[in-house]
């Protein structure tokens, strides 16, 4: 099998090999995680000078800081002397990262500010300017979210997001005050990262079966293959994907809010108020869109219908660490925030009624992909192929309530990044 066979030209079938080949994973580290914009966190997590958090880009430990002047930085969390991780905590406040091994000390802007014995032992011959922490080549933010990119020549974050930004605003920009993140919850799943990512990116199809235990019975009894009446799969391009309810113009927010699971009056009232603000900020069309699921290429997933954003951190070819956050409007009243986070964590996260069952799907698909016999057969991604549509009111291409339009987009982007004009 040559690499051209990994993903069919139309994306409608793939080889299981891409979930299980360790050599491909090594290549992904460089060609995917070494080039894409990766989610690092949210400005609200770094409230003041000296705030820091530790996260990962691919498998690299990364230190994200707000320096004394309020500027955001991201650096490899590795001392330049021998590589010791200068930061050992998930978060906190400090402006001084002293390496524990020999005491080299870095400022929160990454510069090397102190080397023990610099004059005597190093004979004043060490050029401290050359030995600061290694900066992540690019750091940019989009409406509160902080992204990093190892590739100095990458397109801008805005260009990278493309039309996905138009949809992301529905979560991130619907209110003046923006959003904040709670969490993360973190757990390990023995699955290839792409299996998890494609699910977030485009899989509305699984909801009726995989999540049959969590859905209200009346939804189930109707049409289990496509339980969500107004839902569409939307492919904004560039490997991103999402699914959303697009409510008809004639509906008002109370109409659709009453169709979902019951919320307390304070939440309902809040949602209606948000609708008005959103309509003003983003226009009528976007105010009528409610995001269900989605993923920003390559590994930033989300289930906005339950207010969760997550990073699918790869941990080898067979494992991921899921970092799951709850996103809330910063200026929402406390009782709304409390309800939203409880509601979110009862559905998503490791103990959620939905997500409990997802892990088993992802590990099972990953396991199958290892069999030499199983690998001889291609997986089927043909749902809706050739039936993509466009709209003059919204960017991107559209599939039905359930469609594999987005998975195809995801794997075609993967092919492009992995094998087109690649030389690193």
């Amino acid at each position: 099998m040559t690499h051209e066979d990994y993903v069919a030209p139309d994306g409608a079938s793939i080889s299981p090999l891409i979930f299980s080949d360790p050599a491909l994973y090594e290549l992904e580290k460089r060609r995917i995680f070494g080039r894409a914009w990766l989610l690092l966190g949210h400005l609200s997590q770094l409230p003041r000078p000296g705030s820091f958090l530790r996260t990962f880009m691919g498998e690299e430990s990364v230190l994200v800081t707000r320096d004394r002047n309020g500027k955001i930085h991201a650096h490899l969390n590795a001392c330049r002397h021998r590589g010791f991780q200068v930061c050992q905590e998930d978060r906190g406040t400090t402006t001084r990262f002293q390496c524990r091994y020999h005491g080299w000390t870095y400022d929160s802007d990454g510069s090397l500010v102190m080397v023990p014995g610099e004059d005597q032992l190093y004979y004043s011959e060490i050029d401290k300017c050359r030995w600061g922490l290694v900066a992540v080549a690019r750091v940019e933010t989009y409406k509160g979210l902080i992204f990093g990119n190892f590739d100095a020549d990458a397109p801008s974050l805005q260009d990278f997001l493309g039309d996905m930004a138009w949809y992301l605003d529905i979560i991130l920009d619907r209110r003046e005050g923006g959003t904040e993140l709670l969490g993360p919850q973190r757990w390990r799943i023995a699955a290839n990262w792409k299996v998890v990512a494609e699910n977030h990116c485009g899989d509305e199809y699984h909801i009726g079966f995989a999540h049959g235990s969590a859905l209200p019975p009346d939804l189930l009894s109707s049409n289990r293959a496509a339980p969500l009446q107004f839902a569409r799969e939307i492919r904004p391009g560039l490997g991103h994907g999402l699914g959303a309810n697009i409510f008809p113009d004639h509906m008002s927010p109370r109409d659709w809010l009453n169709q979902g699971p019951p919320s307390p009056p304070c939440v309902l009232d809040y949602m209606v108020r948000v609708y008005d603000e959103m309509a003003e900020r983003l226009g009528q069309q976007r105010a009528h869109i409610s995001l269900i699921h989605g993923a920003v290429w390559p590994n930033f997933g989300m289930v906005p219908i339950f207010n969760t954003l997550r990073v699918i951190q790869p941990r080898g070819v067979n494992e991921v660490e899921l970092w799951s956050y709850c996103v809330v409007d910063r200026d929402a009243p406390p009782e709304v925030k409390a309800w939203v986070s409880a509601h979110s964590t009862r559905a998503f996260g490791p103990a959620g009624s939905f997500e409990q069952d997802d892990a088993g799907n992802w590990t099972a698909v990953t396991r199958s992909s290892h069999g030499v016999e199983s690998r001889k057969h291609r997986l089927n991604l043909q749902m809706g192929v050739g039936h993509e549509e466009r709209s003059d009111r919204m960017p991107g291409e559209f599939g039905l309530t359930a469609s594999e339009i987005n998975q195809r987009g995801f794997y075609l982007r993967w092919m492009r990044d992995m094998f087109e004009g690649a030389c690193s």
Partner: protein
Amino acid sequence: MNSEGMMRLLQVQQWLYREARLLDSRRYDLWLEMLDDQVRYRVPSRAYIRQAHVKDFATWSVERELECDDALALIDDDLAALQLRVARLQTGMAWAETPPSMTRRLVSNVMLLDSDADGSLSVVSTLFLAKNRSEGRALFTAERRDRLVIRGDDFRLRERFVVLDDVVLSSENLSQIF
């Protein structure tokens, strides 16, 4: 500890053992009957947070690592939520427990911390939970901080706060009750 206190301690211990056995036997229906109407059941997330000074061991507390309430817990349930958790298992589509996990709970280090004026008991215990599935085994250790209310000869769980000893869970989900 007088002999009355001793008796109470042993009763609580036996109550916790009975609870563990019901859960290991997957009798979630009977377990629900052990809960008080007002029950609150929480499992916080846990994180490593930079410590400023360390001289005073009182500042080394486990509490500062726990994320609950204003942060994002792993579980924060009331009775209705727990009932839903159990009802889910009965739908025939709760795949995370199909076939059901083989679990085993060791409950140890049971201590009665105090009795409140309202007669409720504050109990801590240590839990070791092994959860086996064909995909592998997950091991959990935790401290459980319970509040039990007395109902005649028996108790009801009013509050449980579970301090798991993991920052990143090594289990693919939390499909079991602690």
